[in-house]
Structure formats: structure tokens, C-alpha cells
């Protein structure tokens, strides 16, 4: 059998009925397109989150207060008041801890910030000078919170570049240099002493939209608390992360007078833990969305089967004639199968182009990195061809098994 002839014939049959072929193809186009778009968007946001978490600083452990127990009633996790500045100091000074390099205690809360006629609502973070090293943050102008600021409970603030932009306008567009200016938080006046380096990111995890103040000022004057919202710990190197996690854990258990690690009123997470959790969440979303897209692909496949069945019925006489002229079963089967596969394959091709286009446009508009996943594109081609075979099989078999005399008689 001349397969080139077979391909040409299938092609011209499909070309004869452009509208029908197009509509049959559309299901696959949409299915493949949405799978590709969603998978690459999912991967893009996953990569974004990983990148952002990595910029927080490597070798980082984060201690968060656990659920607080009072009289057997368990409060919300993370809302506890069990971590104190003294805990943080103990971690760095304790002789039993050998793997920790720096400790950065933090307290943060959202507040309204006012500067002249501008105001914004953002995260106010009470920090110590160690923050710069532990969290991998520097200043682009001015200075960061110093030990004197901390000891003297000074009312000074360091702005994230986004907050600076919100409050003082773009430096190039006639905005004033925020350093040296005053801002007001909760009715208290703070002097801006520095601007941090941009760390990128957008939306819910914007690391540039922050205001840093001395930890002591934040605890005593702004929020009136004596506990911390977290302690960040820089470990000497990545190989001893687990050891550091254990050392810090036992020290805090001891300080909090707890014997059973299961009762711990705090939790210690490493970067790997956080990335793992975030990846798991976005991974679940990606899987879910791909599942929905796969369903639409399935529906597209059923559409193709439907069209192919109609085609077989319509061309019963032609099939009968071809068999009378010597077409064997496998040739009739191959011809119809080829038509189905051509539709799905071309549909898959258009779908991939469309999906990549949509993913590119969306990632541009959402500020996500654009991730083109070659395996998922190859998989999409494979799947679209497989759908052609899967859903074209039954109609093709039906055509191949037609008895020639019945088919020739068919009106």
C-alpha cells in the first residue's frame, strides 16, 4: 500500500469539509491549549515562589510561635505569644548551640503609614541589626536599624523601595528623597534613615513593601507587646541544618519548661520545609487545573469520535466501493484512523501554539516568569495523537468491518 497516497487522500477528504473538520479540531485545540497554558502558568508561579523564598536568605531557620494553650484550650497556630526576645538572645549565647551564626528576632504587624498627604497600609517589622545579614537584605541609601537605635528605642524607620515609592513618589518623577523625612505610624513620628535594596516580587509576597523599625520600639511603643512573631536564624552552613534545628528545638523546650517535644509551643521550619509546603500548594493547584483541562481534552476527543461516526455512515457507499475494488480491512481502518489522527494532531499543534501564547501573555501581565516546559509540549503532542487513535478506533473499525454488498446497496 502506498502510504503517501493514503495521507494525501485523508488530507483532501478533510479539506473538503473544512467547517466540520475545523469544529472537530476545536475541541482538541482548546483541550491541549488549556493544558499547556495552565501547566506552564503553574510552573511559573511555582518557580516565582521558590525564587522569592530563596531570596529570604539561605541557611535560614524560622522559629514561629505555636498554638498557645491556656487551660486546655488550643488557640490558632502562629498566634501564640510564647517566643520572647530573651529566647532569641539565649539561642545566640547558649553554649549548647554550636551551629548558629546569627539570630534575628522579629515582630510584625500591619499598620497605616502616613507621610504628608500620602498614606499606605503595609507590614511594619520590628527588627534588630542582625536582620540585614540573616535575611540577606541591604540598604540602597542611608543606613539600616543600628544597635544604638535598638538600645535607645529610637523612632527611626527604614522603608522598602515599594513603600518609599508609595509614600514619596518616584525619585525620577519629582519625588523627594525619603531619607531624612518623617513618617507617622499610629500617631508616632518616625524619621526615615534608609531605603532597602529591591528584592523583587509582587502581590501577596512583596518583600519590597515593608517598613522596618527597631524591635524595641515596635514592641514597647507601637504594639505594646513583649513577645515576638518569629525568630530567624542563620545557620553556619547548609550541612548542619538538621542539627541546628534540633539544638534550637531542645533549648527552647528547656526554656519553656516542656519535656515532651510533641507539646512544643513553637515550630522550626527550614527553607526546604517552606519551599516544600509552597510547592505542594501550587503543585496541587496545577494538578487540579490540568485535570480540568484534561477533561476538556476528553470531551474534544468524544466530539471527534462523533464526527467520525457520522462520516463513516455518510461514506458507507464509498467504503463499499473501495472494498469492492480491493481495499483490505486494514487499509480502510488505516484511512479512517489517519483522518482522526490528522485532525487531533493538527489540533494539538494549534493548541500548543495557542497555549504557549496564552501562557506568555498571562505571565507577562501577572509579572510571573515565563516557563516553557518542553516535556509538557511533547506530552501534549503525544496525547493529541493518542486521542485520535483512541477515539478514531471505533469508527475506523466500524468502517473496516462493513460488508461490501451491504455498503454498496446503502442509499
Amino acid at each position, binding site marked *: *500500500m*502506498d502510504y503517501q*497516497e493514503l495521507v494525501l487522500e485523508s488530507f483532501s477528504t478533510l479539506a*473538503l469539509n473544512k467547517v466540520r473538520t475545523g469544529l472537530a479540531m476545536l475541541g482538541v485545540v482548546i483541550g491541549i491549549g488549556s493544558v499547556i497554558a495552565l501547566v506552564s502558568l503553574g510552573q511559573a508561579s511555582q518557580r516565582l515562589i521558590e525564587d522569592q523564598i530563596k531570596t529570604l536568605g539561605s541557611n535560614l531557620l524560622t522559629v514561629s510561635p505555636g498554638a498557645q494553650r491556656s487551660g486546655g484550650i488550643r488557640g490558632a497556630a502562629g498566634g501564640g505569644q510564647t517566643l520572647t526576645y530573651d529566647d532569641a538572645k539565649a539561642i545566640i549565647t547558649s553554649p549548647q548551640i554550636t551551629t548558629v551564626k546569627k539570630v534575628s528576632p522579629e515582630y510584625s504587624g500591619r499598620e497605616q503609614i502616613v507621610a504628608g498627604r500620602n498614606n499606605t497600609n503595609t507590614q511594619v517589622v520590628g527588627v534588630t541589626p542582625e536582620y540585614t545579614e540573616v535575611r540577606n537584605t541591604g540598604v540602597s541609601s542611608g543606613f539600616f536599624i543600628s544597635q544604638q537605635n535598638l538600645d535607645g528605642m529610637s523612632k527611626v524607620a527604614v522603608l522598602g523601595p515599594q513603600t518609599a515609592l508609595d509614600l514619596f513618589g518616584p525619585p525620577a518623577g519629582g519625588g523627594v528623597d525619603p531619607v531624612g523625612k518623617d513618617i507617622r505610624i499610629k500617631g508616632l513620628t518616625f524619621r526615615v534613615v534608609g531605603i532597602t535594596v529591591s528584592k523583587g516580587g509582587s502581590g501577596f509576597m512583596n518583600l519590597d513593601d515593608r517598613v522596618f523599625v527597631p524591635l524595641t520600639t515596635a514592641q514597647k511603643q507601637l504594639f505594646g507587646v513583649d513577645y515576638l512573631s518569629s525568630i530567624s536564624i542563620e545557620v553556619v552552613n547548609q550541612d548542619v541544618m538538621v542539627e541546628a534545628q534540633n539544638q534550637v528545638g531542645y533549648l527552647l523546650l528547656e526554656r519553656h519548661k516542656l519535656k515532651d517535644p510533641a507539646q512544643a509551643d513553637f515550630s522550626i521550619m527550614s527553607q526546604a520545609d517552606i519551599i516544600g509546603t509552597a510547592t505542594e500548594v501550587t503543585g496541587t493547584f496545577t494538578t487540579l487545573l490540568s485535570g480540568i483541562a484534561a477533561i476538556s481534552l476528553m470531551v474534544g476527543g468524544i466530539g471527534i469520535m462523533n464526527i467520525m461516526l457520522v462520516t463513516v455512515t455518510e461514506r458507507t*457507499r*464509498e467504503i463499499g*466501493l*473501495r*472494498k*469492492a*475494488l*480491493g*481495499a*483490505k*480491512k*486494514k*487499509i480502510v481502518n488505516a484511512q479512517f484512523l489517519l483522518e482522526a489522527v490528522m485532525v487531533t494532531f493538527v489540533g494539538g499543534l494549534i493548541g500548543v501554539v495557542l497555549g504557549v501564547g496564552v501562557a506568555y501573555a498571562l505571565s507577562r501581565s501577572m509579572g510571573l516568569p515565563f516557563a516553557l516546559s518542553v516535556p509538557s509540549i511533547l506530552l501534549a503532542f503525544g496525547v493529541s495523537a493518542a486521542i485520535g487513535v483512541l477515539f478514531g478506533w471505533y469508527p475506523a473499525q466500524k468502517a473496516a468491518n462493513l*460488508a*461490501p*454488498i451491504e455498503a*454498496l446497496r446503502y442509499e
Partner: protein
Amino acid sequence: MIRVSHLTKTYKTGEIEVRALDDVSFEVKKGEFVAIMGPSGSGKSTLMHLLGALDIPTSGKYFLDGKNVADLDDDQLAEIRNEKIGFVFQAYNLLPRTTALKNVMVPMIYGDVPREERTKKARKYLEMVDLGDRLYHTSSQLSGGEQQRVAIARALSMNPSILLADEPTGNIATNQAVEIMKILDGLNQKGHTVVVITHENEIAECTKRIIYLRDGKLEKDEMNKHRRELSKITL
């Protein structure tokens, strides 16, 4: 060439069993020009299907070039049809929206004739039926007689053992019908074995031998003594 012995075909429609062909035996030798005649319901279509290897008999034997066709499976039958039988149908059965040339090439595609040879042969046979100037016309651009001539060219393309024409003139105007019969006669004179199935006396009288069927049985099998000389008919 063709030998059928005790050929029987029964169809079951629900409870009723219809004996469409009942113990038919005859022989057709190479180079004969035979008409199979009978009124409708006489079993001539059934016989044509069996002779054309489109169907297999319920019982009896059918030898085509020494091979018992009754024993073959679907794909082997397809091969027989492709190589040994040239069909000419009442309704022409050309592929729609396809050129005459392509239509003639269809059996050769299934018969694995190489591309160049296919085109050459298709052209030759179309010229033989006087359609050398219609090679690229599609079926809808051709008259009934012309379409049937394309069908004859197609039937000849694999150089078959027999040419099986089922009411070849049934759908065609009289003057063109004579033309078709002249072509079949001409092919017979060149040595082709031609079997025509018809219910029209005038058509049967153009052949050399007439087999009469009635109620599925062979009624009469005789040489045609009053043969109409096709070459003398002028229009």
C-alpha cells in the same frame, strides 16, 4: 476460468429463510461474452455478488482460475476482487469530487502498482474508452455514459480475468447505452471475458451466450443464435 457447481445462497430475514440461489452450476471459459438474464427476484444480483467475490455462498463451490473462492476470508476476497475481477456497476460508483484519472487509479493503489505505472496505465485505459480529453474532469462534470466509461476503464486497470458488468446500461440514455455495449463487445473481441447481468433482452441479445435464471434456479443456458451485430447499429 469460472466454474460454479451446486451454488446455493440462502438469506435469513427473521424467521423466514429465503433461498436466493438454488443449486446453480455452469462454466464460463476464457474469452466468452455471457449475459445472465432474469426478472427481478430471480437471483441474478445474488449470483453477481458471488461471482464478484463480494459474498460467499452458503453451499456449493466457485472456482475462479482454479481457486475455490468459497473458502477465502475477507482480506483474501478483497485480493481476488482487486486482481481478478473488474466491476462495472449500474450506478457507476465513481468517487465523487475526484478526477477520472484518480478514479481509474484506485484499484491500482490497492494493488500496489507503482505510482508512475499507475498514471501511465490509467491514461491508457481512459484513452481506450475515448476519454483521453476528459482525464481531469470530476465525476459530476461527466455525463452518465462518460462516467460509465470511466468505470470500465477502472475495471480494466488491473487487467482482470473477468469483467463483471451489473446492469451497465441501466442508468444511461439509449444512444450512450449502445456505446457502452460496443466498448464491452470490443473488449471481448480483444480476448477479455465479459459477464453482463441484465434484465433487458436487447442487452442480452448483444452477447454470445445467455444464462436464464428464474426463482434462484438456472432455467436455460444457451448460445445466442440471434446475436445483434453491435458494429452495424448506427445512431
